[in-house]
């Protein structure tokens, strides 16, 4: 049962990801990207990481895809369907990506991975995550990330605003 769900989610994720990198219409690419992210959120649910699945939907589907769609709307120069969407090196790029995939699959399938240990999340994983966030192990990266988000916010406003002169 879990395997069937995983295969459905994997096919959804990979199919939409393929459409993202091959679609001629950039807007369609962004919509397929959203579905691909939803598939990844489903994979997190299969892995019993419910909190991450929620974060995935909120941050990626809710925020990043919206941001990307805004950027496409603001910079649209692909009204012309005859415009090439891939560059001269797409063949060699596909070859390199395929070669890396083959190498990774060979490596992954040769290792005897342990089976999943029994584990029931029952909600306490979120409490653990919250406690770990402010524990001495993670409090410094946590604060650095909050500063990084603030700097990115201010920086993008400065970069993208209209220069008046």
């Amino acid at each position, binding site marked *: 049962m*879990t*395997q069937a769900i*995983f295969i459905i989610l994997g096919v959804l994720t*990979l199919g939409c*990801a393929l459409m*993202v*990198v091959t679609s001629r219409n*950039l807007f369609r*690419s*962004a919509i397929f*990207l959203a579905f691909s992210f939803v598939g*990844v959120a489903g*994979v*997190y649910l299969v*892995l*019993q*990481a419910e909190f*991450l699945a929620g*974060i995935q939907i909120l*941050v*990626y589907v809710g*925020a*990043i895809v919206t941001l*990307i769609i*805004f*950027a*496409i709307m603001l*910079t649209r120069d*692909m009204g012309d369907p005859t415009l090439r*969407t*891939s*560059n001269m*090196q*797409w063949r060699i*790029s596909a070859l*390199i990506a395929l070669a*890396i995939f083959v190498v*990774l*699959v060979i490596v*992954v*399938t040769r290792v005897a*991975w*342990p*089976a*999943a*240990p029994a584990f029931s999340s029952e909600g306490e*994983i979120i409490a*653990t*995550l919250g406690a770990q966030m402010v524990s001495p192990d*993670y409090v410094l*990266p946590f604060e650095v990330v909050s500063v*990084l*988000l603030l*700097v*990115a*916010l201010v*920086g*993008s406003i400065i*970069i*993208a605003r209209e220069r008046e002169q």
Partner: protein
Amino acid sequence: MVPLSWYLILGAALFCIGLYGALSRRNAVAILMAVELMLNAVNINLVAFWRYITPELVTGQMFTIFVIAVAAAEAAVGLALVIAIYRSRDTVNVEDIDLMKL
């Protein structure tokens, strides 16, 4: 139960699709989308390893949360740069943006 290798293969496939997109697309926004796909592939691997190797520690999930936060910052700055370039040069085609190329 799904074997761990399936998750790793899914992550590898997603990463390679993203790599192909980042290398072959001409539009800067499309390249950013491909980079987001690659970051998601990494996250799948991190969460899968957390579940199968060390479910009692939350390190894998913590790292994934940090990756998502950095990805959000990266997307915001990247798209701001794209908009700024479009404003000054009227294109988002990375082949035409060669100001810093000798």
